[in-house]
């Protein structure tokens, strides 16, 4: 009879019980998480303070790697290039991906939409596929040799628009970013769709009673209410983008050409750590690059947690 036991007795009985069970419950998760997630990260930061000689022995070197990373042209140019490209990559995702995602979610959440489930299922399909598949499929489509995209442009009367987008420095990064957007738009779509579904009918009704049409309802009622979700999507996109690697590796390889035009932090990290062709890998410098990536992501998350999220009003629904 839970209700009959007084509060004092309840807490007393908790104190009497051995607390070892708390440890047992927490141990597996805490152990695996610490050993394989936190410890490696801290150890990488530690390893970034060493350099390796030609026989593979590591020597302590303080901040030497970081100084080289920022000052030596052979490192600094690539680092700066990768960072800038990563920012562009992120901006394209936040704008194109999230706007399309919001638009799709808004349309899918319209009342009594015929075929809603089918649309949703099909549009989400690319997200389920591995990036290797996506990368290669799009390479084939955009390939000047196979001619699918060229033929398509010719069919709609715009043959002069065709260019080897993946091979030109000016368009390679944007093209790959758009391919990535194409793949992952399903995630913001689903998250925002869920948030939209949660908006109580009363609010929508109140607005429509006042004479608002669907567009009004969306921009003045729904959008403000889903801003927290949009914020969450933005920060998840940020973390994901500054961690990204798979698509560019699958499409352009480790060199992220042409002339490093598609090089982002993830590929720069991989190439530094594992080396490429005749260039040997440099694990300590790789650790330094990883540390920088971690700091950048940390700064972004801090800005979000303390700058953005606090300011967002959470409406009690």
């Amino acid at each position, binding site marked *: 009879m839970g209700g009959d036991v007084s509060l004092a007795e309840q807490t007393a009985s908790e104190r009497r019980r051995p607390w070892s069970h708390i440890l047992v419950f927490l141990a597996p998760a805490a152990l695996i998480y610490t050993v394989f997630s936190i410890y490696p990260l801290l150890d990488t930061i530690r390893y970034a303070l060493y350099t390796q000689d030609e*026989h593979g022995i590591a020597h302590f070197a303080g901040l030497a790697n970081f100084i080289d990373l920022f000052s030596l042209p052979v490192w600094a140019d690539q680092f700066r290039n990768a960072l800038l490209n990563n920012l562009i990559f992120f901006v394209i995702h936040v704008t194109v991906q999230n706007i399309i995602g919001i638009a799709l979610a808004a349309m899918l959440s319209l009342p009594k939409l015929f075929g809603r489930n089918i649309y949703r299922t099909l549009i989400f399909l690319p997200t389920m596929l591995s990036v290797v598949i996506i990368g290669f499929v799009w390479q084939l489509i955009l390939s000047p040799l196979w001619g699918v995209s060229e033929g398509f442009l010719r069919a709609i009367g715009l043959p002069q628009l065709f*260019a080897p987008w993946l091979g*030109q420095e000016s368009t390679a990064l944007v093209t790959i970013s758009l391919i990535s957007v194409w793949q992952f738009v399903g995630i913001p779509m689903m998250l925002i769709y869920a948030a939209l579904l949660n908006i109580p009918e009363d609010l929508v009704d109140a607005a429509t009673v006042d004479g608002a049409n669907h567009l009004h309802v969306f921009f003045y009622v729904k959008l403000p209410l889903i801003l927290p979700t949009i914020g969450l999507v933005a920060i998840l996109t940020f973390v994901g983008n500054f961690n990204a690697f798979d698509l560019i590796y699958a499409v352009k*390889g480790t060199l992220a050409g*042409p002339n490093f035009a598609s090089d982002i932090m993830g590929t720069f990290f991989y190439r530094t750590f594992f080396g490429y*062709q*005749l*260039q040997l*890998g440099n694990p300590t410098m790789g650790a330094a690059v990883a540390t920088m990536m971690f700091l950048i992501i940390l700064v972004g998350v801090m800005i979000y947690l303390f700058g953005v999220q606090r300011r967002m009003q959470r409406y009690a629904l």
Partner: protein
Amino acid sequence: MTSRSTPIFGRLLRSLLATAALAAGGAQLVSIPAASAQNLTIESWRSDDADIWNGTIIPAFNAKYPNIKVVFKPTPPTEYNAALNARLAGGTAGDLITCRPFDASLELYKKGQLVAVDDIKGIENFSPVAKSAWQTDDGKTTFCMPMASVIHGFIYNEEIFKELGLTPPKTMAEFHQILDKIKADGRYTPIDMGTADQWEAATMGFQNIGPNYWHGEEGRKALIDGKAKFTDAPYVADLTELASWGPYMGNGYKAQKYSDSQNLFALGRAAIYPAGSWDIPIFRKQADFAFSAFPPPLPEGASKCYISDHTDIAMGINAKSPNVDAAKTFISWLASSEFADLYSNSLPGFFSLSNAKVEVKDPVAKTFLSWRDTCESTIRNSYQILSRGNPNLENELWNVSSQVINGTMTPEAGAKNLEDGLASWYAPHKQ
């Protein structure tokens, strides 16, 4: 990556995890070291050759040594070095390692990852030149058994040439005349090469026509000594010639990858394919038209011809392999005349480095080989010593060559870029 400061932690964890794994009955998930002593795995970048290795070469070996099972496990060429190094560091590399020439393999030997092969029967079948690509700087230790060299040139579609009334060019001027004629005709791509993968621009472009400009070994040695610089005339001329190729390449060549180029030629849609002789087997298999080859055309004023005849491929033994003896048996067989003959003929375009007399039957391979009689041989100038630092010359050449062809860098800027990169770490080039 070698031993670091956490051996105790690692050991403790290992025992913890092992216990847990056993308790959970998950023992089958933890890898058990291979118990079979006579299984060999070959690491290689020659993914195109997998069928021949598995179907022809390894069975021939097994005819002599039935108890040693060999598996050919290639990695795509652009990923090979990085993947191999990672596997060697992690202890999961195969028993037999296909060795890149010079510095790349020297580094492996210095790290103790390759076994010296001086005592293996058959090493005496190779000349000092052949061995030099896989020896320590003092020439005292050889760490890979040489296998073959490759020659560079231009493969062309004989039927297209006949149709357009063309004959193989001897000079660069003639070369450009032919290119113009093919382009004017409009049906075929004159030069079949792309810049998406970058390495073809350097290997089948820069290093292909280059020896004619820098006079082969003379120029290469001068670069190493610091007497020649990349900003000198021969190298700028080489890059200038490359820069002129863009208009003759296929539509959208900037996104054309190596396999696209191979496909394009094999489908009969291109006339001339800047080649390494290793491309011959692919075209043998897939092209249904007659094709032949011509050597790199001579630049204006040149009378002596040079070809890139590059000691390309060798086989070494992983020092940590559990089957070193079986590996040594295999390596010894690779030095035999039986293998030399088999390799050169089942993979025409790989020319055995062995002293054994080999009769090459493939006509196009024979053509490539015949150039050794009229032209002087040299190896690619970026492989010995000049790719030891950062930025290494080979990767830089890839970048500069493809940019020059793409038109995003002038030949002069490209040459300066190469020289500056080299000068940043290589003493003889620091002024």
